[in-house]
């Protein structure tokens, strides 16, 4: 039996842009157990419902996380629209879908970059982030913001994208698709990359369910669930397949996310073809009363929103269960038995978003 020791990992760590702390119980180089401790970014923003009214909460919801900020705001608005029985115009639904998919694109490219940095492939990191900047430019043209753009409102969206602009975006995405394919080929085919990913961090399908994993983490374990198939926004009109992989390892997670990059481009293309003309928001009057639970598919997986209103302008309860919160138990499972040198990589494979997790 080797020497046992406990090694702290984080909160400030070169590979992590955000703080998470893990206590790793090691036997020589092998991880026997990992104990996560969170709370470095806990703000308690759900409690702001006492101080901000339900319209202002849209902007608070967007600031749960800077990466999927659009989808946080959207899910919150969807919950209130359900409570207040507001019918969102179809054009607004399509615009929301396009922005959601663009968020997914930039989030997955960001993750690929961080993963490359995690296994020490610096130039691949730079390439992924260079590609991502083009998506951010599109956000800037269409909304004025790069990461947080506050275009959601209860009842629709605040800004329209002219059809010319949409067609131009599709042209740009078509050009980008080739570049992305060249970059992602390295992730999927390169010998050195594969040696770090294949067979590392196994999470079986049954474990994924028992541990409550969501999103690409779950789909990489062969489970075919994608909340977009529930048909919220415009997803019901669109044709796409859920991307899964049966390998259950880090390579599978990479594969699923890369597949989703191309899927997102395809969904945007379909949206631009089908988008109807018309209004972009409905006038909303009165105060919300009632409750609603909404599930949306964010880049990191299924996010759960619960909003409960009591007829005044201050909500009773606003609850967010973000995807990373659900993926932490699965991370603990994958870390057991891993090599110490793989720990940063495994932490990255769940695509951690700590700001989301701790709210």
């Amino acid at each position: 039996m080797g020497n046992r020791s406990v090694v702290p990992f984080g909160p400030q760590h070169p590979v992590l842009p955000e703080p998470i702390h893990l206590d790793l119980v090691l036997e020589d180089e092998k991880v026997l157990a990992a104990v996560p401790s969170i709370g470095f970014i806990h703000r308690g923003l759900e409690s702001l419902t006492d101080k901000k009214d339900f319209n202002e909460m849209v902007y608070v919801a967007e600031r749960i996380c800077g990466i999927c900020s659009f989808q946080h705001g959207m899910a919150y608005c969807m919950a209130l629209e359900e409570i207040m029985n507001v019918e969102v115009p179809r054009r607004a639904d399509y615009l929301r879908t396009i922005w959601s998919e663009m968020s997914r694109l930039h989030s997955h490219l960001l993750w690929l970059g961080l993963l490359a940095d995690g296994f020490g492939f610096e130039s691949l990191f730079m390439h992924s982030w260079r590609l991502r900047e083009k998506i951010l430019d599109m956000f800037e043209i269409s909304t004025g913001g790069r990461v947080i753009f506050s275009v959601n409102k209860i009842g629709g969206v605040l800004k329209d994208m002219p059809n010319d602009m949409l067609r131009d975006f599709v042209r740009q995405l078509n050009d980008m698709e080739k570049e992305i394919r060249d970059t992602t080929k390295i992730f999927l085919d390169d010998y050195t990359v594969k040696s770090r990913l294949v067979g590392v961090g196994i999470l079986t399908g049954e474990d994924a369910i028992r541990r409550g994993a969501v999103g690409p983490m779950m789909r990489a374990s062969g489970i075919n669930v994608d909340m977009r198939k529930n048909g919220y926004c415009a997803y019901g009109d669109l044709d796409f397949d859920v991307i899964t992989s049966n390998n259950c390892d880090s390579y599978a997670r990479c594969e699923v996310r890369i597949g989703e990059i191309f899927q997102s481009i395809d969904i945007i293309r379909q949206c631009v073809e089908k988008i109807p003309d018309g209004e972009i928001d409905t006038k909303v009057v009165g105060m919300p009363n009632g409750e609603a639970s909404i599930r949306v598919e964010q880049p990191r997986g299924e996010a759960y929103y619960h909003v409960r209103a009591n007829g005044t302008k201050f909500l009773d309860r606003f609850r967010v269960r973000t995807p990373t919160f659900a993926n932490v138990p699965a991370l603990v499972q994958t870390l057991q038995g891993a090599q110490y040198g793989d720990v940063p990589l495994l932490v990255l494979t769940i695509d951690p978003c700590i700001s989301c997790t701790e709210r």
Partner: protein
Amino acid sequence: MEQIKDNMYQIDKAELLQVIMEKKNALWRLCQICCSFPKAEQHYEVTYSFSSGYDFVQYRLIAEKDEWVPSISRVYNSAVFYENEMHELWGLNVENIKVDLHDKLYRIDVETPFLPKEEN
């Protein structure tokens, strides 16, 4: 068990563990646990959400302020985080959590910040 609305059932404390065992054996995934304390009703509402494929079901448990609620963390490991969160932020008493962090999940300075302040 009584249906409140679509996909939502109200359950008693006594039924809870049995229902949860059934869900586990049928390979349902624990989606989340949500605690709330509506000001008007002055009691806790704990909502357990489960999902299997695209099916979704929620169970609601009502608990009074000083009542103890059984933990489901021995059935679903991932409930540990939710239950510790409920105790730390709302002060809901959860019995027998598998890994009890004793209010050290978020390590905040304020006690039960989500519980509405008593007016005096």
